[in-house]
């Protein structure tokens, strides 16, 4: 089965090759190739998933030697210790990820057919997006960090290409290079983490890593002055921070909205950015073993979630709101992993992928219809676009944490985990605090978006007039994704555990338990801890319902009923508002200070240094030295010194025609004189030596 599973990644890869080479000549510019390929992947992924559902557990591996690097043992025999082995790992996590990615990708492909219709470079769009799907699926299938990283980077490339898809637009290409470079900061460090992993464990295979960790390997190794596990853990975290747009490398994701909307849905909401969280989950045993990293993870997540949510409040671009909300939700997942709520973190990854993809596609549908992204120019679209409205509303309920929807289940569990963590570890009260605050803010800005877009009166009559519902290829994906936003898909009818625990089938929890067992992190809580957890989850349920309700309430009275003026809120915020509007001045700091004042100045300095100091002074400067000798000797003999020393010696040693052009006579005999002098010196020494 593992070999067949490779097809899941290979289908889109083949589609990419076909599209890139022949796409332009195919009928319909070959969009069907990509769509069929990803549906093929979905079809292959389904049996794996059904196996998980029916048997509760899947585990398959398949490995090949990719690079044989023979080493020699002391006895002189060749060995293969350094060989690089890659392969496919299919376990519960993989199976869930596969079905999620293939499903979302299929739907988004389908949506793109309508959305991108008639665009220039239509075939390339599908080529890139197929390559992306191949990368993401390859990443999910990888059983080792090396291929994981390769796919990771491949996705980075596709992200770059797709953000810069409208390559004539300066803002788009700036955003694309920013995205690539910012994530590459994290990627580079992630790669160092992989190298360190190789050094410590001699492998990057996940299963072997888990086994080694269970045996307690790696605790006594130091790297560059740090404990190895902490070093690796930190580097892996940096990878996540780059890819999942966590604070402080979150700046690229909002700009990435320059890409076409399906790209935002697929890459910058559902899959690629979630890959960072997936990485943390895959590496969880290592993070846990290092002890120092997990709190950092939790804080990074909590801070990101909170800061991004705050910015989202003031955004007026519908896609930017969603972008910041994505950052914020990713922060939740990271926080969940950080507080040890590993399963809820993963669950949130999946649920978020579904409802965020839905939200993005809905926003795409709106944008496609009214040709603007500015929410201030929308309004009152509810009647014009009923399906879009309904699906988007469902997804909004899900992300806001309303019971009965998927987002509620996962978010509530994360918050419960965070609360339990702060109860167990005194002093970490900031984490749940930020978490709950974010939950409220999320509900607020999401409903703000819904109200501004669909309710009220039309603010731009012209645009409103032309608005229309989208064709069926675009609405079907919306509906399917909206269906997946209900809690029942993942947990139970309401999502509230105490009510739902009679439900016989809780496939998700079973699958995750299996996965945890496999990783060697199966929880065996002490009775006290059990009690704390139970208590915390109960408290979290009440609190999260309360804050979400509060958020929705404020949003409603402000943007729906206009009882509270948005202007009043703005005034109340005081100096915070400009801070949020300018996104905490991160861009100014990175681009203005670090890059322009720092890096580019330094580059320029080095280039000048290279040209003027090393080349001109150190190399060509021999001329000046000989010239200096000349002036010391003075006018000893015009003929000898000026014409011969300078013309001859200086130029030859000077090492450059710059000198030759200025001082050289080009006369044979002057060189000969020099030659003869050398001969004399040589003979003189020969005489000395022969004595």
């Amino acid at each position, binding site marked *: 089965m593992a070999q067949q599973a490779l097809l899941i990644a290979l289908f889109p890869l083949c589609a990419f090759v076909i599209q890139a080479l022949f796409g332009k000549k195919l009928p319909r510019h070959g969009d069907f190739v990509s769509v069929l390929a990803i549906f093929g992947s979905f079809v292959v992924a389904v049996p794996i998933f059904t196996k998980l559902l029916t048997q509760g557990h899947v585990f398959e591996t398949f490995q090949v030697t990719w690079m044989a690097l023979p080493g020699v043992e002391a006895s002189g025999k060749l060995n293969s210790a350094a060989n690089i082995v890659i392969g496919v790992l299919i376990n519960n996590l993989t199976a869930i990820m596969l079905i999620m990615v293939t499903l979302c990708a299929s739907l988004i492909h389908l949506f793109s057919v309508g959305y991108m219709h008639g665009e220039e470079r239509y075939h390339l769009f599908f080529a890139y997006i197929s390559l992306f799907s191949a990368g993401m699926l390859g990443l999910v299938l990888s059983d080792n960090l090396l291929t994981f990283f390769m796919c990771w980077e491949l996705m980075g490339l596709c992200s770059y290409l797709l953000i810069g898809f409208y390559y004539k637009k300066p803002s788009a290409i700036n955003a694309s290079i920013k995205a690539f470079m910012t994530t590459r900061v994290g990627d580079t460090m992630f790669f160092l983490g992989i190298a360190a992993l190789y050094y410590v464990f001699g492998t990057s295979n996940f299963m072997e890593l888990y086994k080694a960790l269970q045996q307690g390997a790696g605790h006594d190794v130091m790297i560059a002055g740090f404990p190895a596990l902490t070093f690796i853990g930190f580097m892996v975290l940096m990878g996540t921070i780059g890819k999942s747009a966590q604070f402080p490398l979150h700046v690229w994701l909002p700009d990435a909205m320059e890409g076409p909307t399906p790209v935002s849905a697929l890459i910058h909401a559902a899959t690629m950015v979630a890959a960072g969280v997936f990485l943390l989950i895959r590496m969880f045993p290592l993070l846990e073993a290092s002890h120092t990293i997990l709190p950092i993870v939790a804080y990074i997540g909590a801070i990101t979630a909170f800061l991004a949510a705050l910015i989202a409040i003031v955004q007026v671009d519908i896609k930017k709101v969603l972008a910041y909300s994505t950052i914020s939700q990713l922060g939740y997942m990271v926080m969940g992993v950080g507080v040890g709520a590993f399963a809820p973190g993963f669950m949130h990854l999946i649920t978020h992928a579904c409802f965020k993809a839905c939200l993005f596609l809905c926003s795409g549908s709106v944008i496609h219809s009214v040709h603007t992204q500015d929410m201030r120019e929308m309004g009152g679209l509810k009647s014009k676009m009923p399906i879009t409205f309904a699906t988007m509303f469902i997804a909004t309920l899900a992300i806001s944490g309303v019971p009965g929807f998927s987002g509620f289940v996962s978010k509530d569990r994360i918050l419960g985990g965070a609360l339990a963590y702060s109860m167990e570890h005194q002093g970490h009260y900031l984490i749940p605090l930020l978490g709950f605050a974010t939950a409220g803010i999320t509900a607020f800005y999401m409903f703000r978006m819904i109200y501004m877009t669909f309710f009220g009166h039309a603010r731009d009559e012209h645009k409103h007039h032309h608005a229309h519902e989208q064709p069926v290829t675009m609405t079907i994906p919306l509906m399917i994704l909206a269906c997946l936003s209900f809690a029942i898909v993942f947990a139970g009818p309401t999502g509230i555990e105490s009510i739902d625990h009679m439900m016989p089938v809780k496939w998700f929890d079973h699958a995750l338990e299996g996965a945890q067992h496999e990783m060697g992190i199966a929880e065996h809580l002490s009775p006290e801890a059990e009690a704390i957890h139970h208590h915390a989850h109960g408290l979290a349920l009440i609190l999260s319902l309360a804050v979400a309700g509060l958020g929705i309430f404020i949003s409603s009275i402000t943007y729906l009923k206009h009882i509270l003026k948005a202007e009043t809120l703005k005034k109340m915020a005081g100096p915070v508002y400009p801070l949020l509007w300018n996104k905490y001045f991160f861009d100014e700091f990175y681009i203005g200070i670090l890059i322009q004042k720092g890096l580019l100045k330094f580059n320029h300095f080095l280039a000048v240094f290279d040209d003027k100091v090393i080349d001109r002074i150190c190399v060509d400067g021999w001329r000046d030295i000989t010239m200096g000798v000349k002036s010391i000797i003075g006018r000893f003999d015009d*003929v000898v010194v000026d014409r011969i020393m300078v013309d001859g010696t200086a130029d030859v040693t000077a090492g450059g025609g710059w000198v030759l052009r200025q001082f050289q006579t080009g006369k044979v005999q002057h060189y000969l004189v020099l030659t003869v002098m050398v*001969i*004399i010196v040589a003979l*003189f020494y*020969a005489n000395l030596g*022969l004595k």
Partner: protein
Amino acid sequence: MNKVLLLAEILTVASALVVGFHPNILYASVFLLFTFCGVAVMFLYAGADFLAGAQIIIYVGGVTILILFAIMLTQWLYKIKLADLRNKMILPAILSVAVAVFLYRALHQMVATLPLQTPEALEKFTSTPKTALMGHALLGSYLLPFEAITILLLGAMVGAVWLARPE
């Protein structure tokens, strides 16, 4: 017999002096011819009969004539005075003398390090006719350099013809 050798050496050096110092290039080249002849005699006395012959044929018969041709082709005997304009002479003179002195000293001292044959063997070697010996050497252990020099000569000839061809 040594008188002849001494005379030859004097002739060699004296005419070389003329070559070095005479302002007229034509005279210089004619005296170069005498130098070559003197060297040929020295070769003869060193037991190098074949070389002496070759010296006469190649240098006296070939090179010198070539040089004279070149002079006549380039410096119209009637139009341009043949006096050779000189560069500054002091430094070259110093250098040349220094070279001569140091070279002689170096060689003189180096001689001691060379293997020395018995006087009988040397005498026997000097008195043997060399043509046959050289022939064997050239087609024996020196075959490769010999072939190389053949190609060099051919190349030089072709090159010279090509360079001097009419436009």
